[in-house]
C-alpha cells in the first residue's frame, strides 16, 4: 500500500529532514508515527501527499510511484488520500456542507452523488445537524470532524492524520481517535502522525518512532517510547 525505499530529504544547504527511511505499510493498518519536534514526522507526511519531493529514494502509494509525480497529477493523488491536519485547513467562507462537498465538486462528481455522500459522511462524524454552520461557529473538535468527513468523501484507501488532536482537549481528542478507529475498521489504512503519548499507548497498534530523520523503532503493538 505505502512503500518507502531509502527515502532521504535534504533542505538546502544541508538540513536533513529524513535520512534513508524504508517502510512498508500494509492495507488496513493503523500506524502511528511518533517522534519529537524535528524528527521528520511532518516531512514524511508531506511526502505522502506530494507536498514535498524526496531528495533520494522512492515512494509508492498503492503501486503508484509518486517520487517524481507531475504537478498536474497531484490532484488525483490527493483525491485518493484523505488528509487531516492539526490546523484543520477548512475553507472559512464555506459552510460545513460546502467544505465537505467541495472535495467532491473539484473532482467533477455529479450532484446526485454529492447529495448522497455528504450527509452520509457527516453522519459518520456526527455533524449532520450542523451542516449549514460555518467553521467559526464550531468547536475545535467539531471542526476536526468536518476535516475528517471531507477526507472521507472519496472513500480513500489511506487516511493521513498529521497531529489531528494537537489543538484539542482530552474529550475532543478521544472523540477524534474514535472516529479514526471507526474509519480504520471500515478498511482504510490510517497513518496517524502524533506526539500524544496517551493516544498512542491507548491504540495498541503499530508505532513507528522517528528520531533525527531516521526510523528509531518500529513495533507492531508499540508504545510511545520517547521521553516527554
Amino acid at each position, binding site marked *: 500500500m505505502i512503500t518507502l525505499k531509502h527515502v532521504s530529504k535534504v533542505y538546502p544547504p544541508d538540513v536533513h529532514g529524513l535520512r534513508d527511511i524504508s517502510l512498508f505499510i500494509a492495507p488496513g493498518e493503523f500506524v502511528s508515527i511518533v517522534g519529537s519536534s524535528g524528527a521528520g514526522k511532518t516531512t514524511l507526511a508531506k511526502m505522502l501527499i506530494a507536498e514535498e519531493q524526496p531528495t533520494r529514494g522512492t515512494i509508492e502509494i498503492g503501486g503508484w510511484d509518486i517520487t517524481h509525480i507531475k504537478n498536474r497529477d497531484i490532484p488525483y493523488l*490527493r483525491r485518493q488520500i484523505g488528509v487531516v491536519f492539526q490546523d484543520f485547513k477548512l475553507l472559512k*467562507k464555506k459552510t460545513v456542507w460546502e467544505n465537505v462537498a467541495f472535495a467532491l465538486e473539484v473532482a*467533477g462528481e455529479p450532484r446526485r452523488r454529492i447529495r448522497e455522500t455528504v450527509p452520509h459522511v457527516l453522519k459518520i462524524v456526527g455533524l449532520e445537524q450542523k451542516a449549514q454552520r460555518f467553521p467559526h461557529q464550531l468547536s475545535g473538535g467539531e471542526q476536526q470532524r468536518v476535516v475528517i468527513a471531507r477526507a472521507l468523501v472519496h472513500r480513500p484507501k489511506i487516511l493521513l492524520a498529521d497531529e489531528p488532536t494537537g489543538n484539542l482537549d482530552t474529550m475532543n481528542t478521544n472523540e477524534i481517535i474514535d472516529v479514526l478507529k471507526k474509519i480504520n475498521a471500515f478498511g482504510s489504512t490510517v497513518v496517524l502522525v502524533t506526539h500524544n503519548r496517551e493516544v498512542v499507548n491507548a491504540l495498541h497498534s503499530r508505532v513507528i518512532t522517528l528520531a533525527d530523520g531516521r526510523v528509531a523503532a518500529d513495533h507492531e503493538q508499540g508504545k510511545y517510547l520517547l521521553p516527554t
Partner: protein
Amino acid sequence: MLILTSTARVFSFAWKNFVRNAWIWLATVLVLVLALLSVNTLVGVNAVASSAIGVLEDKIDLSVYFKPGTPVAVLDQARSYMSSLPQTSNVDLITDAQALESFKKRHAQDPNILSALDQLEQNPFGASMVIKARNTNDYPFLIQALNNPQFNFAVESQTYDDHATAIDRVRKIAASIRYFGTVLTAIFVIFSALIVYNAIRVAIYTMREEIGIMRLVGASNAFVRLPLIIDALLLAAFSLAITAGMIVGMIAFFEPRIRTFFDGADPGLQAYYVTNYLQLLVLQAVIMVSVVSLAAWAAVGRYLKR
C-alpha cells in the same frame, strides 16, 4: 457532461467567492476605479486643453489690407489665388464699400466720427482679405504666397507679422500640451496598470490559505485558478461600469463650469466623450481585462507550485 458540470461549478464558485469576499473585492474595485479615473481625468483634461488650443488657433488669421482704390478684378484675383491653395481653409474678402458700411455701423452712436467721415471726399477704407489656414504651421507659406506679382503691388499691409510671435507661441504651447498630454497619459496608463496588477495580487494574497486548502483536497490548478480569474474579470467589469457612471456625472458637473473659460463657447468635453468614449471604453476594457487576467493568473500560480 463532466466538462459542463465543471464549467458550471467554476462559475458558481467564482460567484460565491465574489460575494463572500465582498470586502476584499470592494477595496480592490476602489483601487481599480481610482486608477481608471486618473487615466480618464487626464484624457478629459487633454480633450479640454485640445479644445482650448483649437479655440485659440481658430482665432488666428491672416488679414491683408489692400490700398484704397484697388480694382475689383485684382481683389478677385487675390481671393481666387489664395483660395486655390491647399493650405487655405477659408478666405473672406471685404470690399472697401463693405468696410465703410461696417465702420458706419460700428460708430452709429458717435455723430462726431460720422460727420468727420462725411467731410472726406473719398472712401478712406481699402478692401481687406481675411485668410484662415488649415494649420497654424501653414501661415508662413501663405505669407510667402501673398508675394504673387499679380496682386502684391496692391497690398498695403498684412497683420500676421504683428502677431507672428504670439501665434508662434500658441503653436508651440499647443504642440507641447499635446505632446506632454500624450506622454503623461501613457505614463498614467502604465502606472494604473501596475496598480491594478498589484491590487489583484494583494486580493489573491489574502486568499493564499484558501488556495492551499483547495489544492489539498484535490482541486486541479484550473479549478483553483479559473474562479479567481473570473472574479478578477468581474472586478474589471464593475470598475469600468462605476468609472463610466462617474465620468458621466463629472462631465455634467464640470462642463457648464468650464464654459466661462471658453467665452461661453463649447469646451468640447461632452462632445469628446460622446465621440470617443466607446473607443476609449473598449481600449480600457482590453487593457483592464488583460492586466487583471494576467495578474490573477500569475498571483494564483505562486500558490500552486506543489
